[in-house]
Every structure is written in C-alpha cells, then in structure tokens.
C-alpha cells in the first residue's frame, strides 16, 4: 500500500516503494513514481531531495587489514586472561593464609579452624549503604553495589586484610604493634596502612585511592608508592601504571563525601554526575539532548532510594526525568 499523500521528506523516507525506486532497483515502482511526479509538478524539488537522501553519497570505506584486527583481538584476549589470573591469585592468597594457620594448629583442630577461617562477606545492592565494624574495631563505610570480604577473626600480629570490589571508606584503628599493618586488596592494587582514614574506589577500569588522614603505602605489584593526606591516586593494573595523581584542595572534590550520606558534586559535568548515579543505582541514564553532558552543575543528593533522589535531581538540574524500570530519561 502506498500512502496517498506525500507532503514532507519523511513521508518519502518511510515509504518502501519510494526507497526501491530511489535506489534505482528498476522494479514495477518506476512507472508509479514517474507518473506521480508528472501529476505533482510542485513536489519535484522535494522528491529529488528525498531521492538524493536515499541514494546517499558513494563512499568507499578504508579497508582495515585483517592482520590488524587479529593482532588487536589477540591483545584483548591476553589482557582478559591476565586479569582473570590476577583475580584467581587473590583468591588463592586467602587459601594460603588458611592453609598456613591450619598447619600451625594441626589437623585435629580442623573444625575450629574452619570456623575461625570463615570469611565474612558484605555485599551492598544498588542504592544500599552499610557501615561495618571490622574485628579490630576499624570502621568501613561500604558504598552501593560493592563487596567487602574479610576473615572473621584477626590474630594479633597478623596483617589485617580485607578484599574490596567497589567503593569503601576506611577509618582504621591504629595498632601500636609493628607488623599489624592494615591491607585493602583490590583487583588492581593493595593499599597498606598503619591507622588512618582513606577511601578506596575499585570499579571496572581502575582503582582510585583517596587519603584523608595518616599515611598509606600502595603496593602496585612491581613497585611501591607512598601517599600523603589529600592525595588521590588512580591506578590501572591493566595499563600497569598510575593513570592519575593529584591533590584535592577543594572540599567539593572530596572523594569520601559520600560517607556523610550525601552525594556532593560542585561544578561537576553532568556527564560525571550521571556516571556516579549509574554506578550507585545501577540505572542507565539517557538524555534527550547530548549537550547537557558538558554543562556544569552543583548537586547535593541524599544517599537514599532512587524515588527520593529523582525529584531532587530534577529540581537541582532543572530537568524533567521519566523513569522506566532501570532507565532514566532526562529532558
């Protein structure tokens, strides 16, 4: 069925018969469209434009050599393998400790040992936060969509270790005893401290450590670096390098502000605000007009359920937000 009226360019573009004709496929359509043009001389200009729009421009895309694709794929695969090896290594490490303690105590006390070695696991969902007290009294604020693991009971003199994926703020109790270092292990790096407060953000790409107070040592596998209060270091194990190192001066940029129960972003790009919200709530944010990405906003959002946050976001960014399951559409 052909439409009866063609008034604007889209009317043509949505008509299959027209597209066939414009592509010069020489079908039965030809007669129809030639007649149509004769009957509608006022629309010849429009139909010629529509035809050009369908036919387009004859580009000849550059060939990408197959060797280039193969070598890029090889690189990707080896990076994925290297990364999963590293993760396996982390898991093995916990078993090595377990095995070592088991050896010391002897096989008879296995039941007791296994209970002792039980790891505790805290997992927060999107839009969920939790404060956890570690066996030594240190406090951890676990951000949304994060995972923290540690062994239930910590021995004096043993290094205190936790495994983190996601983001957490640590307020570590100082131990006078030398050797009772505190370690946060992430897929990228190990953070080692002796009593201090710091934020570790380890998601996807890289791990970002922010030191609020005290002194920490970063173990990057092949080398070590020290941080001073106010330092923010981002490290990517995949790239095997520190990707960013800076000092925060403004309070607004404080990466641990979320522990105060607010997401506080001053003069931030909308793009960054969206990334943060996507990370915390597991939503996908779509915008009607992409120009908004590079606009700056100052928002202060309570870390509450999404239903509460959305209206506040609407007001502070002066946008309209429609929510559809896990998608937010901004207009």
């Amino acid at each position, binding site marked *: 069925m052909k439409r009866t009226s063609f008034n604007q360019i889209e009317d043509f573009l949505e008509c299959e018969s027209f597209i066939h004709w414009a592509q010069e496929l020489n079908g039965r359509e030809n007669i129809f469209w030639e007649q149509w043009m004769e009957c509608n001389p006022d629309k010849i200009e429009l139909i010629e434009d529509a035809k050009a729009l369908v036919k387009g421009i*004859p580009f000849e895309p550059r060939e990408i050599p197959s060797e280039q694709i193969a070598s890029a794929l090889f690189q990707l695969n080896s990076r994925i393998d290297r990364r999963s090896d590293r993760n396996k290594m982390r898991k093995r490490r916990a078993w090595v400790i377990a095995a070592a303690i088991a050896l010391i105590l002897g096989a008879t006390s296995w039941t007791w040992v296994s209970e002792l070695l039980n790891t505790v696991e805290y997992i927060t969902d999107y839009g969920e936060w939790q404060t956890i007290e570690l066996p030594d009294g240190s406090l951890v604020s676990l951000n949304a969509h994060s995972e923290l693991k540690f062994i239930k009971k910590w021995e004096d003199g043993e290094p205190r270790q936790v495994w983190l994926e996601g983001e957490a703020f640590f307020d570590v109790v100082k131990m006078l005893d030398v050797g009772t270092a505190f370690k946060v292990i992430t897929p990228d790096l190990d953070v080692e401290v002796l009593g201090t407060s710091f934020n570790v953000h380890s998601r996807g790409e890289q791990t970002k450590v922010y030191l609020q107070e005290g002194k920490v040592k970063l173990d990057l596998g092949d080398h070590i670096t020290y941080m001073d209060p106010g330092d923010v270091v981002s490290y990517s194990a995949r790239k095997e390098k520190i990707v960013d190192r800076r000092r925060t001066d403004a309070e607004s940029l404080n990466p641990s502000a979320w522990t105060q129960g607010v997401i506080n972003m001053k003069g931030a790009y909308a793009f960054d605000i969206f990334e943060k919200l996507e990370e915390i709530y597991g939503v996908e944010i779509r915008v009607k007009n992409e120009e908004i990405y590079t606009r700056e906003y100052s928002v202060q959002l309570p870390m509450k359920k999404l239903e509460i946050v959305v209206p506040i976001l609407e007001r502070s960014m002066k946008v309209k937000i429609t929510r559809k399951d896990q998608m937010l559409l901004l207009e």
Partner: protein
Amino acid sequence: MSITFHSDQLLWNAFKAGNRDALSNLFKTYYPILYRYGQKIHNNHHEVEENIQEFFLYLYERRARLTTPDSIKSYLLKSFRRRLLNHLEQSRSHRKRMAQYADQLVDIQFSVDEIMVRQEVSDHIRHIFVDMLNALPKRQREVIYLRYYDQLTIAEVAQVLSISYQGAVNTAYKAIKALRTNETLSQISAFI
C-alpha cells in the same frame, strides 16, 4: 559483514553469558567500524586502538549487567563515541573545556580516496566534491559519515548521536540539500 537481527541477538546473549567465541566474533565484526570512526574523531592510531581495547574489556567485565540493545552497531558506536570523547575531554585544558562542548570535538574530514571512483569523473571534480563535503557544519558531516559511510539507518544515527529521529532526518536533509544546491551541481551530479 552483516548478521541478521536474530543471530545478532543470539551473539549478544552468548557474549553476555561470557562466551569467549562470541566476544571474538563481536570484536572482529565491529572493530573495523569502531576503528574507522575513532580515527575520524581522533587522528591518533595508538590512542584509538587503546580506547577500543579498554572499551571491550569494560564491556566484557560488565557483560552481565548490559542491556540488550535494538541495534548492536549503534549501541557500540554510541558508547564508544562517548568514551572516546570523554578521553579527549580529559586531555584538554580547563579553559578549552569551558569554551567548547565535547561534542564539538568531532570534526570529521573526508578525503578524495574515500569517494568511490567512477570513470566518468575527473580527479578535479572529486576534489571539488570532497571540499564541499568538508565545508559542511560538523554535525552534518558526522551524520553524513554515520549514514552513508557506515551505512547506519536514520534511526541508528539518531541513537548514536542521542538526537531524535526527526533531528537526524533534518540534519541529513540539510546536508544533502546544501550539496545539491551548490552552483557546481551539474559537475557533482555524478555523486549526488
């Protein structure tokens, strides 16, 4: 290489389930498109390459949480574009960032050897045509690139650029109109 919608979706599901063959297949299919687009946006082979690598690693690691897009092609182009622009944005000075939206960093240029050769057309005329293309506004050039160079549908172009369908039609239309109403029309009619 074109895959039907149905098997495209199967491929995506297999990829989401962690199938490494599906990852390889996806990579081989879309690498050329992403690489070419990346080079048009940022003329630095190493950085484009690195961004593709990181992009796929990111997709692979987040695979379980990814949604199933209507069009894999436009989904990948869109996310990769956003990622690359974000990367470029970070290397710009603060003042430059203030002066320009990241979107305006996309300044696609066409070259004569990318226009299909037709015997009846002289080199001189091909040059005139390419100059006309490159004189179009940035946004129009990007739409032209996605629509005719990468062969995306108008709906897919709209998706990649996060604009409405109507907006994509209008932009493409303006570009074509500008090319067609140029006074050298008779000479370039071989192209358009």
